[in-house]
Structures are given as C-alpha cells and as structure tokens.
C-alpha cells in the first residue's frame, strides 16, 4: 500500500482500503475471505497487514486527541482576555495549525478505514492558574513541548513510513510553536540540540 503526502494541502493521500478493519465492520475482511478460500498463507499476510493498519490508526487517533486538546487550550487562551493583540494573533494562528493537523489526521484515519474517536465532553483545563499573559503562554508552551515528544515517540512506530513523514512534519510545526512561545516568554527558544 502506498501513501502520498499532498504538499499543497498537507493532506496525506492514502488509498481507501479494500477491506475495512474497524471493529464494527470486520466480518468480511481480507483475512476472512482468504480463510474461507482455505489459503492459510494469505490469511497470515492479510492478518499482519490488517493488524499493522489498525496499529497505525490507533496512533493517529491518539495524535488526533492531542490536537483537539491543543485547539481547545488555545481557545481558552484566546478567550481569556489576558493576551495582548500581537500575542493573540500568534495564538490564533497556532490554533489554526492545530485545526489543520486535526483535519488531516481525521481524514487519514477515515481513508485507512478507521473511525476517528469522539472528542471528550470537556478538558478540565487548570484555568485557575491562568492569571496573566505569561501564565497562558507557559501553559501553551507546556502543551507544545509535550506534543513534540509525543510525535517524536510516534514517528518510529508507524508501519507505513509516509505516515511517519507526515507526523514528523507536524512535529516540526509544533516545535516551532514551542520555540516562539518560549521566545515570547523571554526564555531561550531552543534550549537544547536534541529532544526526545
């Protein structure tokens, strides 16, 4: 199976699967068809492919959850009234990036035959800690820093390497967010040569 990242839109072009593997619709998967035909070699190959694709979708869904949380967090910051106009503009721009990440992740999950998980009803952010612009920026920086690690930890796991490439692209964007937030806070924007 091949995947292609569409550079103009950031979309990940993936062929729709010939069989769906989500738990609600697995009855006539490729593995099942091969099993019915008595072709055991194909069964194991199909099972392996199917399992790998499910693993990829699971990772994408975890990333989707984190992107949704980031969008909600930036909304809290933007609506807090604590951000100056220049900083607010940057925050809204970053939130827009996370929305783009969310959309491409969700569409990729669907293209792979998976189902995007439902967002939580609420996020229970520690809003009581957000009393100044710096508090909001620190909170956002923490989320972005964590996201960099989360993507760095996910990149090696994708079975399909084009998904790794796409995740690395998102990682780079979120690392830039983190650096700019730190710079705005008067901190060293890039405190280390390596991150994990």
């Amino acid at each position, binding site marked *: 199976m091949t995947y292609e990242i569409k550079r103009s839109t950031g979309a990940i072009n993936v062929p729709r699967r010939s069989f769906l593997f989500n738990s609600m619709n697995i009855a006539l998967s490729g593995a099942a068809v091969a099993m019915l035909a008595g072709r055991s070699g194909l069964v194991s190959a199909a099972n392996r492919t199917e399992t790998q694709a499910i*693993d990829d979708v*699971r*990772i994408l*869904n*975890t*990333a989707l*959850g*984190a992107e949704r*949380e980031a969008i909600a967090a930036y909304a809290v910051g933007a609506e807090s009234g604590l951000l100056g106009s220049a900083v607010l503009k940057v925050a809204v721009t970053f939130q827009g990036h996370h929305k783009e990440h969310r959309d491409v992740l969700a569409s990729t999950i669907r293209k792979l035959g998976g189902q995007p*998980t439902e967002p939580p009803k609420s*996020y*229970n952010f*520690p809003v009581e800690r957000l009393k100044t612009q710096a508090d909001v920026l620190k909170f956002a920086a*923490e*989320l972005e*820093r*964590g*996201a*960099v*690690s*989360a*993507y760095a*930890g*996910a*990149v*090696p*796991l994708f079975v399909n390497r084009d998904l790794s490439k796409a995740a690395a692209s998102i990682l780079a964007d979120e690392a830039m967010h983190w650096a700019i937030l730190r710079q705005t806070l008067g901190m060293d924007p890039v405190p280390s040569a390596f991150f*994990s």
Partner: protein
Amino acid sequence: MNILVAALLSATAMAGSLDFNGDPARGETLYPQCMGCHSFERDRTGPRHCGLIGRRAGRVAGFAYSKAMSESGIVWTRETLDKFLSAPTIVVPGTTMGYAGIEAAQDRLDLIAYIELAGDSPAPCESSGESGQP
C-alpha cells in the same frame, strides 16, 4: 492477561526487585516528555499520573482506556512501569499510548522516581482525588 505482558512481568518478578536508584530531580526535567498526553492532576489523552504507583492499570474512573490496557492485569509498580515505558506498544499491544518508549534505563528510573514522588504528594494531586489511592 496478554501473554506477552504476563511473560515480561513474570520475568521481572523472577529477576527480583530491580535496583531503583532513580533521581526524582532529574526525572522532573524529563517529565515534559510525558506532557503531550499526561498531567498529574487531570486526565488528558492519557490518564492522570496522581496515584499511579500501586494503581491497577485501566482503573481511573471515567477514562476511556483501550481494551488491551483494561485487560492487561498490570498493577503499576516501579518494575512494571519500567518495563512498560521501555516499549509501551510491545508490552501492551493495543495500547493507545502510541509512543516508542524510553530507551535509556536511567531516564526511566529517574522519571519513575519523579512520578512516584509527585504522584503521591498533596500538590498537585489533592484536587485529583488520586493521591495515594490505588
């Protein structure tokens, strides 16, 4: 319990208690790696870390765990956490923690020392209702 999980955890038990010399202060500097998905006091993409040590996996009320984690049978101890953090998706296949793992053993020990210390302290865990609760 997943067969691989059982094998890994029983191997740990047979080896006896690991020599845990984790440095929580250094672990605190590593904890931001976890903060893409976790915090101590609240559930996020991953469950809260307050009260983690001693807790049975998949048992934070209201958190939507994977079936794999809910049925893993793991109780989080220093040893089980060390194994899990080395390669989450291998130790618990099907976990939603899509993270390759922390390769350096000392990093894991330091991180676990910090999670154990901070995860059982009044701040920030008082509001989570999880401090010291398995």
